[in-house]
């Protein structure tokens, strides 16, 4: 039986060696202990002695780098057959399952954590346990961190105390820590700013509209219908008539919505929020008024739920109560259009060639040009103006 001559481990940590020279040839007689071949290791070139006596039947590796333990030759009897050396079986490369990078639970948790509110671990736990939305809590800890006390207070329903601020010495700049809401506004509107938009402005004669509102208040004194409510109704009707404007642009497709879910921009104490009225096209003015009042109330007291803010296909922003005559609103992404409403003021206007004074309101429509072109937008705006000037057509 032939003996395998294997590359020996000549030192701790040796993983391979390079055979540089055979000191015996195939067919030679070999004595145990005789130097057989020379090997180069990290440290030196060393002679390797034969571990058996016999004939060097075959040299399997004449030179080159070989891993420790590999058979490099055979010693046996003259004429003995030796099996061809089978290549060391390739380690079947184990296909390693790549974890789905986007779908693992960890990914979701990490992504979710990105918009983190600053709150102590204890505060978070208490919030979880008591069902308090941290977004609605004001933190009184260092750097605006929400601490347990703040959550306890929110859970008990008490209003957040005015954070005691030492009066800033006159010359110093006060640093107001960013709330979550402010951060969100900043982020989203920066996003909106990158969208290619155009604006269309139109003046609306509010004579008929004002009369309608007055009459409505007379008939239903407990439901206070406002211009905003009427605008919502009119825009909803307009969006039904011009579905090309009730859309949103995405990379894959243009999304068209079957209902007019209209957001009303509200100045809440923590910042701008836009609660949404759903399927406004189906609501009566009174229903809109009631719903709008409810939602704005919640916005002002910081009690909005996520469901109030989700969705929305169109937004109305009314700064008329501040006396602003006209302005351009920033899109509320991912919506494709927003209507900026100014104050209604008496203006001189030509009607049938005669100079008269009429209550005029200027509205400006900002539109995402990727989703809606100028003509359809203008068309929509004309409808809105028509409906406002002749409300009977919209109702």
């Amino acid at each position: 039986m032939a003996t395998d001559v294997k590359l020996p481990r000549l030192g701790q940590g040796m993983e391979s060696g390079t055979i540089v020279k055979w000191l015996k040839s195939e067919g030679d007689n070999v004595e145990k202990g005789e130097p057989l071949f020379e090997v180069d290791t990290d440290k030196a070139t060393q002679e390797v002695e034969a571990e058996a006596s016999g004939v060097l039947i075959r040299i399997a590796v004449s030179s080159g780098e070989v891993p420790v333990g590999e058979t490099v030759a055979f010693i046996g009897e003259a004429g003995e057959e030796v099996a061809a050396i089978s290549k060391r079986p390739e380690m079947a490369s184990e296909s390693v399952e790549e974890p789905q990078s986007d779908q693992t639970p960890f990914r979701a948790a990490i992504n979710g954590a990105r918009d983190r509110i600053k709150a102590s671990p204890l505060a978070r736990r208490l919030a979880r346990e008591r069902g308090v939305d941290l977004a609605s809590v004001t933190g009184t800890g260092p750097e605006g961190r929400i601490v347990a006390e703040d959550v306890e207070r929110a859970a008990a329903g008490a209003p957040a105390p005015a954070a005691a601020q030492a009066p800033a010495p006159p010359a110093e700049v006060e640093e107001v820590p960013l709330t979550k809401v402010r951060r969100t506004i900043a982020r989203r509107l920066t996003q909106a700013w990158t969208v290619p938009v155009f604006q269309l402005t139109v003046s609306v004669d509010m004579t008929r509209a004002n009369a309608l509102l007055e009459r409505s208040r007379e008939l239903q004194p407990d439901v206070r219908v406002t211009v905003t409510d009427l605008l919502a109704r009119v825009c909803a009707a307009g969006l039904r008539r011009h579905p090309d404007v009730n859309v949103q642009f995405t990379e894959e497709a243009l999304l068209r919505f079957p209902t007019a879910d209209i957001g009303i921009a509200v100045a809440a104490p923590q910042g701008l929020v836009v609660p949404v009225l759903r399927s406004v096209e189906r609501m009566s003015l009174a229903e809109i008024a009631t719903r709008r009042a409810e939602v704005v109330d919640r916005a002002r007291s910081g009690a909005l739920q996520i469901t109030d803010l989700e969705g929305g296909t169109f937004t109305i922003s009314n700064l008329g109560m501040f006396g602003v005559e006209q302005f351009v609103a920033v899109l509320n992404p991912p919506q494709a259009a927003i209507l900026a409403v100014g104050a209604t003021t008496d203006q001189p206007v030509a009607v049938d060639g005669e100079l008269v004074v009429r209550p005029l309101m200027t509205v400006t429509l900002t539109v995402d040009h990727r989703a809606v072109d100028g003509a359809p937008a203008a068309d929509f705006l004309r409808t809105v103006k028509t409906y406002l000037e002749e409300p009977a057509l919209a109702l």
Partner: protein
Amino acid sequence: MAEVSYREAVRDALAEAMRADDDVLVMGEDIAEMGGSMGVTQGLVEEFGPERIRNTPISEMAIVGAGIGAAMQGMRPVVEIMYEDFLTISLEQIVNQAAKHRYMSGGQLKVPLTIRTQGGAGWSPGAQHAQQLEAWLVHVPGLKVVFPSSPADARGLLWSSIYDDNPVIFFEHRLLYPVKGEVGEKLEPVPIGKARVVREGKDVTVIATGPLVHRALKAADEAEKDGISVEVVDPRTLQPLDEEALVESVKKTNRAVVAHEAVTRMGFGAEVAAVLQEKAFDWLDAPVERVGAKFAPLAFAPAMEQFVVPQPADVLAAIKKTVART
């Protein structure tokens, strides 16, 4: 009950152990007639003789090693290393030999050796006579590390250390030696691995060792005036650490400060903070604060020494940080 000093308490424990057990002996530099550089072994050579209160040459490696060898033969030697800084010289014997014989032999050997040493700032000792190196030793598997802050704890823990079958590093502190405290008539062994609540409180837990226990108590009194209720816990044994007791306290108060005289950075306090955030994460209402020496060797000039070493005011500031509001 009697009132004794920390120094007397240590001496007491040594004497009692030596009376009870012929296998206990004390070795160290200048410990016989002189009674040790800190006076701890004063009077012992008169009672026990120079064989058992044994002066050694200045050979920290051999002294500790001889202690290891005698311990392996069943004796219970107590080796005194004059200054904690000199532990570094004998570290090879402590870390490579004492800590590992049991393990490397697969359980065949025990090394019931106690190494007593003292260190710390105070009286301008200079950088090579002032270090607090417990972080080096708690990091070595196989060693136990003890650091009592009161006379009763010192007495009870030294007894337990001598009778523990593992190598124990017993840290004393020079400023603690004259501190007096109540001890029982009889020596009460204090178990290794158990913390002690020194002061109860509700708002924040201060975990402190050695002299910082006393400074924490001062800070706690001050904090009380501001309406902050402080709990002070002394782990007493640094390795094995009584994690359960520390976590229990922090779960109660929701805030923690860890205070030691050793350098804060990479210190023992860092380990405690890690354990707390790991085991009491959802109970923490503020980040864990650490109080310790600033990252510099100890300067000679007193003003500089005072600046680097943590004072009661530093503990108070940390306490206040944990309850701070904007």
